[in-house]
């Protein structure tokens, strides 16, 4: 696939012509996890398990798209507010939809509104005021959480998702979960947008060297703000999927996705400094992480084990993939 740009990265694993090797390694690792899991729990390496893993991983991968866009825009961009952006959308639109399809369009509009607003705030503070996005989005997630707290302090969360959302998020066509199809569709659109359009190449340029892009006539602050707005909007839309999947909305729906979304992006090869991003790698990263999560749960380690295992593996992956030891 010819892309508008090709990359080179430092570090001992990263080479342009090795990129395919890395994706293959990810696939191999996933297979390994399933095989290892089979030893633990006899039904681990089953079609059913694989499909469940793919379904859950799809949600992570969708959130990772938000991260990828923001990370690619440069300036150590991260969006930690995606979890609560999704949650707040789910909470607010639940009662609007009330189990009917008729108000779905309104719910989508609300989601877009929330996402754009959140994204704009994040983008403005990060790009125009030059505050570190890590802190900004973390604070934003707290603010969103606070809004939810205020909202639910008085009233219970009522409402159910529209059937369309439920079909999209929870149901399957044949054996394949619908959300996987959605992911594939989104992936194709994203790849085209990033690699074959002016906008995508501009985004990567801004992330790679903001000054050079600026001097070439690009409004870099606007590009970065738009990246955050896209991230926020997309996170909100994922919120609709979340409620579609769960059937109800509850206060912490989205927060478990934040760390995995960043992890999947990093494992998928997206550079933290910006300037690149390969969505296929990110999707594979999400699958890898979800498979690992399933393995840990199958081992019966519960909540504690889940986080320990996750943290350890992420640490190891970072050490292997992202470490930047002094070359001599």
């Amino acid at each position, binding site marked *: 696939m010819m892309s*508008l740009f090709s990359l*080179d990265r430092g570090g001992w694993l990263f080479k342009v012509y090795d990129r395919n090797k890395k994706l293959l390694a990810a696939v191999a690792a996933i297979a390994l996890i399933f095989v290892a899991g089979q030893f633990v729990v006899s039904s681990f390496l089953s079609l059913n398990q694989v499909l469940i893993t793919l379904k859950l991983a799809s949600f992570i991968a969708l959130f990772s798209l938000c991260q990828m866009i923001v990370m690619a825009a440069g300036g150590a961009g991260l969006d930690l507010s995606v979890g609560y952006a999704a949650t707040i959308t789910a909470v607010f639109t639940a009662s609007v939809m009330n189990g009917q399809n008729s108000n779905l369009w309104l719910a989508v509009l609300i989601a877009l509104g929330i996402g754009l607003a959140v994204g704009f705030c994040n983008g403005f503070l990060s790009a125009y005021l030059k505050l570190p996005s890590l802190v900004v989005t973390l604070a934003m997630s707290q603010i969103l959480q606070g809004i939810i707290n205020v909202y639910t302090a008085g009233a219970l969360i009522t409402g159910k998702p529209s059937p369309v959302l439920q079909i999209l998020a929870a149901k399957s066509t044949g054996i394949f979960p619908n959300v996987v199809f959605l992911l594939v569709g989104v992936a194709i659109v994203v790849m085209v947008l990033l690699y074959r359009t002016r906008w995508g190449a501009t985004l990567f340029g801004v992330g790679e060297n903001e000054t050079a892009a600026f001097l070439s006539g690009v409004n870099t602050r606007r590009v970065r703000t738009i990246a955050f707005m896209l991230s926020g909007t997309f996170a909100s839309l994922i919120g609709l999927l979340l409620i579609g999947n769960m059937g109800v909305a509850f206060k912490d729906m989205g927060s478990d996705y934040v760390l995995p979304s960043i992890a999947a992006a990093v494992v998928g090869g997206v550079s933290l400094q910006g300037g690149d991003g390969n969505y296929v790698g990110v999707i594979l990263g999400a699958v890898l992480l979800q498979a690992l999560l399933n393995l840990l749960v199958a081992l019966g380690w519960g909540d504690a084990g889940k986080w320990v295992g996750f943290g350890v593996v992420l640490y190891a992956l970072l050490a292997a993939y992202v470490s930047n030891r002094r070359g001599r």
Partner: protein
Amino acid sequence: MKILEARGIRKRFGGVVALSDGNLGAQEGRITGLLGANGSGKSTMSKIIAGVYSADAGEVWYNGRVVHYGNPHEARADGIAMVYQNLSLVPNLTVWQNIVLGAEEKTGPFLNNRQAREHARAIVDDLLPGLDVERIVDGLSPGEMQIAEIAKAISKRPRLLILDEPTAALELAQVKSLFLHMRRLAGQGIAIVFTSHRLWEVMEICDDTVVFRNGQTVATLDLEKDGRDPAKIIGYITGETARVAQAAYHRRENRNAAILRVTNLAQGTLLREISFALKKGEILGIGGLAGQGQRELMLALAGFYPDITGHVELDGRRLRLTSPAEAVRNSMLLVPGDRESEGLFLRHSLFSNIVFPKLGVRHYPLLTPFGKFREECRRTVDTLSIRTTGLDVPVRTLSGGNQQKVVVGKWLSFDTRVLLLSDPAKGVDVGAKRDLYDYITRRVREDGMSVILYASDNQELVDYCDRVMIMYEGRVVAILEGESITTDKIIESSMRVDSVREGAGDAAHH
């Protein structure tokens, strides 16, 4: 007495071979000059000797034994000190703290700051009297930073001192002063290895010369015995035996109307009420001591400062240069002074670098027209003779000269009215420099392009400009024309300050 002998050094970084056969020797009390194009391996050679890198093969013999340093600290402990091209100063510490950094004097477990201050003061006073060692490095000018860097290297009384392009940011006066100091150090028995792109510097201060090309040592000359023949040395550097005749740019008198009129351009304290006119088809140079606002003027004309004031007219139309987009739209295009931080997307391919500005041009469709762009890119590579293995290589693997061609090349297909060149030949080897200036002078001659050229090397101004503006402290203090464009006159005008002093206000800072 020979203190250093490096033989058969090989070094590769990933897929790129930096050195295939490096040889270098240095003797106590003598100054050895390293010459070579960007990417020839001379910088890598220096770094291997200083312990920053380790050689893949070959032998380094120093002070009576074979050495193998794991890091620069070990080399330093042995008496090898290096003054880096990209400075090794910590910006938030003071000058004296930097000078003793890594090797502080201690009383017991605590630092002895008083001794450190005195030590630093002594060294700095020798090099640049008046530089306050209590100043924070962040606030120094590039020249002062270079001096601090040099002070840091010699503070440990090294036996071998390696200077990697120390004169790049220095005034002529400071260069001469540095040379005096180098002679003094050599007189004390220190061996010095000195790199520079300015041939005259090497010829003036060095006793021996070693020339690198394509990762190999191609010549070792004793300048006293073998003589100082610039043509021969250039021949070794570029590998061409034919005389490198500079396409002498014939200065013509330009009677055209002005294409660009600038009146009272001002930006904070960096630029003060600059007024001038650029005639169509002319090459207007900007000269003066380093750091007098030349780079800032170029950036200002490119729209970098949103709060710029003043009146700018291009082709009769008023321009509000509050953003680079505005400048680009009006075909006033900038080749920035620091290509790595301002001009290139290092990890991206040559193709995407060259194509990037086109992405912002409105009438191109959303989906990029690949075929068209790749064809144009190929043409650019041809026109500028960019040496590369393909369009998709990352630009960070290209040599400095080729990188600079990429920076220029991205504007190639634009209909340029005014080309702003901010020190285009800095750190660029002789061959690439020639290609670049050939292209620029051709565009001026044939297409009537107008050029504003800032060059830190006065010789470039002399060779290529129709007129030269001299800047001092953010103002234009002189304009040289015709016969009076000589290096001597440029230097004279750069130093002359009486006609622009404001009076009492200045007494505070001199």
